[in-house]
């Protein structure tokens, strides 16, 4: 996929399994929205192909579009029409009645303001309306571009719950986001995009463990003595931020306790060194972030 002299997407080979929430991550300009545009037929790639629900996007998207709900970037609506009227117009395109519109407005928490013109809505409310529009058709696949963008913390929690429940209902929710902690909490699988290429993809646990080996964090009074004791037992331990980081699976934490106790060293803290998606994300996209800063 090329935009002028810039290649927006390159060798992106991605398969989203049916059902569940799929997180699509990447820094700004990585190509997330371009990918979504390609999936919805809004942009045409120079090469390659995309399929949604088995249909080739370039040729057969209209045959499956009723089964797909989407939000691309900030949802756009007619600013001088009310939220309800905007949804009614869209619903009418697919023969959906006003009852469903009211139910959706209720579900996204806009029932009370549905009669107000969209111009008066906050970004968060527009975002909710966008999610509402995507839900109108009872879609099997939801493609949502940054659905939590502009929402307040309570709204983010609501959207998180909504996406999780939609995934649990058996729908396929493809959600792009830069709020990594959100994705980690709701997604079953993720893909990380950098410079138009997919740098990691798979179940969240797999992607997390691919970032670097897991370990345990140990706190005790004499860090150097602890490191020596563990090294003697064949375990690699490094002093890190007034604690020892031991390269051993968290399930093997008892071994660490025993080795240290045998040497008369007693722990003040022992916890798993959990790697979050944010760390993996930053590691995998480190070059791009650096280039962005330099630019």
């Amino acid at each position, binding site marked *: 996929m090329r935009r002028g002299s810039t290649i927006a997407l390159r060798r992106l080979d991605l398969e989203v399994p049916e059902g569940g929430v799929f997180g699509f991550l990447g820094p700004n300009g990585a190509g997330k929205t371009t990918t979504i*545009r390609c999936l*919805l*037929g*809004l*942009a*045409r790639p120079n090469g390659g192909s995309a399929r949604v629900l088995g249909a080739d996007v370039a040729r057969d*998207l*209209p045959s499956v*579009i009723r089964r*797909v709900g*989407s939000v*691309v*970037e*900030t*949802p*756009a*609506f*007619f*600013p*001088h*029409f009310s939220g309800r*009227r905007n949804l009614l*117009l*869209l619903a*009418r*395109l*697919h*023969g959906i009645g006003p009852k469903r519109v009211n139910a959706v407005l209720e579900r996204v928490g806009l029932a009370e303001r549905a009669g107000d013109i969209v111009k008066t809505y906050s970004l968060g409310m527009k975002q909710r309306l966008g999610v509402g*529009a995507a839900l109108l058709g009872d879609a099997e696949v939801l493609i949502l571009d940054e659905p939590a963008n502009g929402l307040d913390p309570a709204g983010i929690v609501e959207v998180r719950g909504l996406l999780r429940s939609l995934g649990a209902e058996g729908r396929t929710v493809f959600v792009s986001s830069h709020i990594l902690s959100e994705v980690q909490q709701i997604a079953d699988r993720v893909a990380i995009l950098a410079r138009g290429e997919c740098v990691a993809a798979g179940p969240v646990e797999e992607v997390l463990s691919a970032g670097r080996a897991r370990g345990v964090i140990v706190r005790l009074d004499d860090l150097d003595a602890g490191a020596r004791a563990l090294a003697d037992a064949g375990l690699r331990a490094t002093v890190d931020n007034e604690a020892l980081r031991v390269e051993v699976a968290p399930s093997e934490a008892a071994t660490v306790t025993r080795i240290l106790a045998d040497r008369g060293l007693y722990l003040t803290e022992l916890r798993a060194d959990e790697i979050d998606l944010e760390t993996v994300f930053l590691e995998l996209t480190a070059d791009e972030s650096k280039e962005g800063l330099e630019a």
Partner: protein
Amino acid sequence: MLLSVEFRRFAARELVLVLVVAALSGIGMAGVIAAVKSRPPVAELAARAELRAGRELRACLAGKQISPDELPPGETLEEFCRANIRPENYYGSQQIALRDLPNWIQGVSFILFVGSLVLGASFVGAEWHAGTMMTLLTWEPRRLRVMVAKVLACVVSVFVLAVGLLVALSLTMTLVAATRGITSGLPDGLFGSVAGSVLRSAAAASLASALGLALAMIGRNTAAAMGVTFGYLAIVEGLIRALRPGWQKWLLGDNLSVFIMGRAEGFAGRSLGGAALVLVLYAGVLLLAAATSFRARDVS
């Protein structure tokens, strides 16, 4: 469904409401001004006009006003003189005369043309500006269908609105003429002439909306479409008229004038049918270019 949604959206637009209210207010004001300025002819004025018309008719029949080779084809000198010289012509300009109704309709056609151009251009220009075109395409990805629905909704709605406004104008001026002006001496076929003027002006308005829509679809912007149209009509066509008079019969403005005035005798080198054909051809080419651009370009 798509077509019905587009019709609903057009009808619900704020700009449509604003322009219709402005047009109705203008018609109302024109009616009031005409009623205030027009005075019903008094007997003395009628007698004077009768006398002058008799004098002019005699001069005409004597061949002093038109030579036989200038007569319209198939018309005798007497037929021509009696059809064109009537006492009502000599009442002066202080009376609103019902026989001038086709001229009033043609006179407001330019305003209608401009208003329709704005409506057509903003119908899609506003969608590009607000980003709703993208939302719509995620519901209906067949872009040609979207384009056709928009064009149909726009030109049909504008035609209906234009007919309604011109009928309102005609009724208002008829009322003024009946109460404060002259309704006698109406030429044969006035109703047909009025109906023709209304339909041609409304068709020209529809055409303007199609041109505006097509340009806004290509430029993805209302202001660009308006700028291009007015720049072309005022500058390009003006230059062509001055530098290449032979090309005049191909100009949009000239063909539009022929079409609105309904002159069949070859004004600007065009017949009425020829002008209509040229206008439809221009609109068709522009719409085709717009559809091609809409289908080919990415939407962001």
